[in-house]
């Protein structure tokens, strides 16, 4: 028997007045995997999530969660999902524990079970010490963790996370990533949107890149990286004046790519032969007496992927 993916989205469209925000999104998610929806601000990520979580009615297309249609069976869908929206939606003047008990009760846990579940979640999300403080005293990272905890009070079949780490400091981000990985290990299917390439890299099994309401690429992280080509040899010159000379010296090996920072930043050259290319570059420069500040071999970053797909950086 052919088994359908747990989330299936076909040709989803949505417009607000005259602005078309989603122009036919297609995606699928297999059970127990993490899908990273990657796109710059305004790409339509939140709109897509809102359609899938029954908050918005799409104009066209079809979306199902575990076979339930989001437009025709919204009640069923809501029983299967959890949503952590773009802004931490927890009550400021309630304590962390009160927030979690409220959501537990709303999700049909009995009084005692709600209290136990709240304590469990507070422990799991490292909030036990702050459990009885009002949320307004929380840091951004703590708020976000509480927010996430509130959406998995009852383990959902599919969890939606809309830009879960935007605005967090690096340490809080790391903590949140650990939590997401933990949820994945519990077998929860996760759809997460992000503007951060390294976030998709760290968390997602599959990635779809969307830009202006369209999917412009999809695949695993590695597949996307391969799309851009193999490895690069990246170098920094000790003296910037040498740039033209280097360009001439290496001209037969391929074009010298100047990065975002211009000639002052690192420059790169495609390295189809990996380490051999690097050795070759070092030898040529040494014999020409051109000093290097730094040289390395690297895989293309997701920034490169996005740049090559859309023509602009995130």
């Amino acid at each position, binding site marked *: 028997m052919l088994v359908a993916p747990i989330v299936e989205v076909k040709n989803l469209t949505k417009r607000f007045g005259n602005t078309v925000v989603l122009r036919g999104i297609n995606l699928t998610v297999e059970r127990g995997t993490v899908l990273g929806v990657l796109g710059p601000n305004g790409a339509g990520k939140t709109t897509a999530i809102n359609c899938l979580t029954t908050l918005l009615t799409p104009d066209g297309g079809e979306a199902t969660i575990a076979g339930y249609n989001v437009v025709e069976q919204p009640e069923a869908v809501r029983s299967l999902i959890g949503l952590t929206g773009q802004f931490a939606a927890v009550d400021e003047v309630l304590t962390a524990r009160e927030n979690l008990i409220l959501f537990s009760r709303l999700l049909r846990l009995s009084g005692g079970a709600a209290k136990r579940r709240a304590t469990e979640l507070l422990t799991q999300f490292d909030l036990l010490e702050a459990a009885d403080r009002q949320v307004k005293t929380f840091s951004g990272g703590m708020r976000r963790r509480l927010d996430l905890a509130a959406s998995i009070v009852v383990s959902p079949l599919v969890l939606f996370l809309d830009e879960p780490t935007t605005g967090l400091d690096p340490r809080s981000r790391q903590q949140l990533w650990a939590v997401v990985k933990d949820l994945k290990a519990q077998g929860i299917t996760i759809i997460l949107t992000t503007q951060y390439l390294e976030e998709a890299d760290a968390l997602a099994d599959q990635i779809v890149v969307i830009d202006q309401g369209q999917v412009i690429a999809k695949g695993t992280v590695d597949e996307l990286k391969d799309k851009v080509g193999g490895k690069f040899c990246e170098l920094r010159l*000790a*003296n*910037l004046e040498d740039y033209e000379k280097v360009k001439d010296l290496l001209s037969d090996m391929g074009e010298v790519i100047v990065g975002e920072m211009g000639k*002052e930043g690192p420059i790169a050259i495609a390295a189809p032969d990996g380490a051999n290319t690097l050795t070759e570059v070092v030898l040529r420069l040494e014999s020409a007496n051109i000093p290097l*500040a730094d040289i390395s071999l690297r895989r293309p970053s997701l920034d490169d992927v996005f740049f090559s797909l859309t023509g602009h950086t995130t």
Partner: protein
Amino acid sequence: MMTQKLAQPELDPDTIAAMVAARREGGLQRTLHDIVVVAWRNMLIDFRNPASLVVSALFSTSLLFVFTASFAQVVTPGEGFSGYAQFLLPFASVQGLMFNTVDIGVFFYNDLENGMDIRLRAMPIARLSAIGGRLLSSGARLLIQVATIVLAGHLIGFRFQGGLLGAIGFFLLPVVFTLSLALIGFYIAVGAKSAETVSAVLNPWILPFTFLSVGYVPIEGFPDWAQPIVTRNPVSILSEAMRSLASGEPALQNVIIILLCSLALCLLFGTLTVRAYQRRI
């Protein structure tokens, strides 16, 4: 790290001294200039998002209309509505302005909280430009409201009969008094933990002061026990002063009392606010 050399002046002690001198924080002229700049920024924000300004102005105007409509026949039975409008308008302006003290206190609290204040303090500008700027822009806000209510009052029969000087006094006196009241709000804002605290502390005081004044009704309308309070209430004195200014009667005594009140408030709460402000952070 290779960076291109920026066009930096040589850093000998003389140039540094010149830089410091050029950006000197003190001095009256410098202080006034900085306060005006900050006030201008505050006013721009007010105008870009005028809901609060417009609603405050309309609200006091609507109070004028409604009280004229509902109380004229009670207070001055048998007479027309314009006589009562002439009586009520000064007080209606004062009342409208006094409601603003809460808003102003909250604005100042937001200045302190949203990082604007820190930024200003870290710049080589006059130390008190945040406070002074907020006061000045609030003054502008209040003047706009007095102007609105006077224009609206014109429609229902309010007239200046006291000449230019009287009119200028009519506009400035309530603004000066309200700003000195607003300093109480500033003092609370400096120590407050939330914007709600500011309004919770200020709000309950405004209403008794406005009710217990010769605002809606003349002194004879009050119960005997209340009359001594009412006559000594600064809001009464201010309303009387403005009435006299508008009708061209001698107002000097009341004007001086209000100015002295304002001065006292300024000295007391100005000092308290500045001291608390400097201790903050």
